[in-house]
């Protein structure tokens, strides 16, 4: 019965609905946007009423918020953390820095284009995005998940070679030492 196409579709719809209403956010403040996460998650904006909740470890998290710029040193950790997360998993890019480098476009230590290193599902405009914008971005993510289009994890696996090549470009020694995906 489960293999029946229709029922599979129904199950998937329900699963996606549940996924969209229960999103655990990895507690990893990679950049300055993290400062607006605390208001978002606390009493004034209360993201928990929409199903968002902090997750302490990557194993339990569904979404990683890249809150702004990523330094080369952080990218390595972020990639590792991302690979530790369990699919389906999502990445949200916060602010200018993840889109095209933002303020730090000419800094030797920050990457400019996040989507070269990780598959990003939603970008939020702002420097930094204020909680309302964060919530708007997260509800956009919910919508994408409901529609079944949030397949960053699959994209990452499909294009793994390309992502790895890009990651190696900035961290030649580090990624080479580390095993692929087997965290």
């Amino acid at each position: 019965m489960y293999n029946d196409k229709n029922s599979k579709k129904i199950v998937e719809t329900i699963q996606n609905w549940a996924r969209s209403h229960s999103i655990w956010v990895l507690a990893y403040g990679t950049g300055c946007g993290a400062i607006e996460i605390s208001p978002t998650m606390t009493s004034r904006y209360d993201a928990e009423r929409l199903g968002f909740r902090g997750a302490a470890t990557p194993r339990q998290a569904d979404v990683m918020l890249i809150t702004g710029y990523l330094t080369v040193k952080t990218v390595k950790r972020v990639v590792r953390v991302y690979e530790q997360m369990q699919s389906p998993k999502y990445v949200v890019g916060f602010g200018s820095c993840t889109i095209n480098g933002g303020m730090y476009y000419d800094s030797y230590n920050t990457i400019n284009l996040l989507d070269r290193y990780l598959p990003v599902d939603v970008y939020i405009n702002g420097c930094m995005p204020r909680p309302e914008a964060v919530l708007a971005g997260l509800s956009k993510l919910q919508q994408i998940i409901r529609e079944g289009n949030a397949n960053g994890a699959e994209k990452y696996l499909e294009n793994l070679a390309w992502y790895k090549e890009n990651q190696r470009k900035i961290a030649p020694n580090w990624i080479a030492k580390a095993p692929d995906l087997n965290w």
Partner: protein
Amino acid sequence: MREKATTIYLGPQHPGITGNMMVRLKVIGDTIVSAQTEVGYLHRAFEKLQERRNWLQGFTLMCRFCVPESDPMENVYARSVEAIDGREVPERGKYIRVMVLELARIATQLMWYAGQNGSLGLYTMGQWSIGDRDYILDLFEELTGGRVYHMYQWPGGVRRDLPEGFTDKVLRTLDYLEKRLKDYDDLMFANSIFQKRTQGVGIVPKENIIEHGVVGPVLRGAGIRSDIRIDEPYEVYDKLDFEIPTQEGSDIWARALVRRAEVHQSIRIIRQVIDQMPSGEYFNKFPNPLKWIVPAGDAYVRVESGRGEVGFYAVSDGTIHPRRMHLRGAAYVHAITLLESILPGQNIADVSAIMNSLGTCAPEIER
């Protein structure tokens, strides 16, 4: 028998770390035997970037130095450029700056309320204080146009005048906060578990204060009455009446009491500022920013932030670009050598609380 030490990496992805940094701990059981701070996860090379930007453009980067408390950074930048350039700030501009700085101090301390209690497991406090901090951010938004990054104080004064009816809103918010601070006291300072967790923990030995360059609430928590606002009064602090709270004990509890008292003092200062606010200009215009040449020279100015002394060293070689800018944050010394020296012997459960109480701010360390 010597036990084998386990290595624990506190961070960079860890809910207990403040910001994006790492502390490598060697522990035996629950006791730390050695600690090594590792930073660099947030290094954006601001100072390098500022060398590529002109004197005005550099100002936009300043508030990003320390994300939770951006205004002291803007203030040191503005004042260092004013010092080299010989630029005066109108009286009203100075008062507005003091108001912004003190509002920022309250916001920082509210953030600290959240962080300190979060690290001890009292999440209710964090939910309250960050929610209430948002009202201050609303004030900032109305005054400066930005919630977190204000980009408001610049050389020569401030960017815009106070909007109409702003002071009334500030006073209303302060009244609300004072009411809430009583609730905070009941929940947090009266709490016996909080006292048990903080008293006698994270002691900064008084003999280490000088060699570690301890500043701010940590210094005052060790019983030394030192504050840039009275040591080297800037803006209009010499015209205001306020106290510098100190505590003996030098532990997390003492520092918490200092910070608590500082919030009250800040409220007091803002009330005075609003009373004394002069009318007139708020900004002495600088020349066209594209062609603004600051004469050669250097200056080091300091400001008392919520976490302690923030210093800024600026050098001009007489062109439209700064020669060098260099920031010294309070966390720069606290979170590395001081933290490394006081962590051994502490319980692993207290690391996060100690880091919070030292005022660790990762982006400020690495810049």
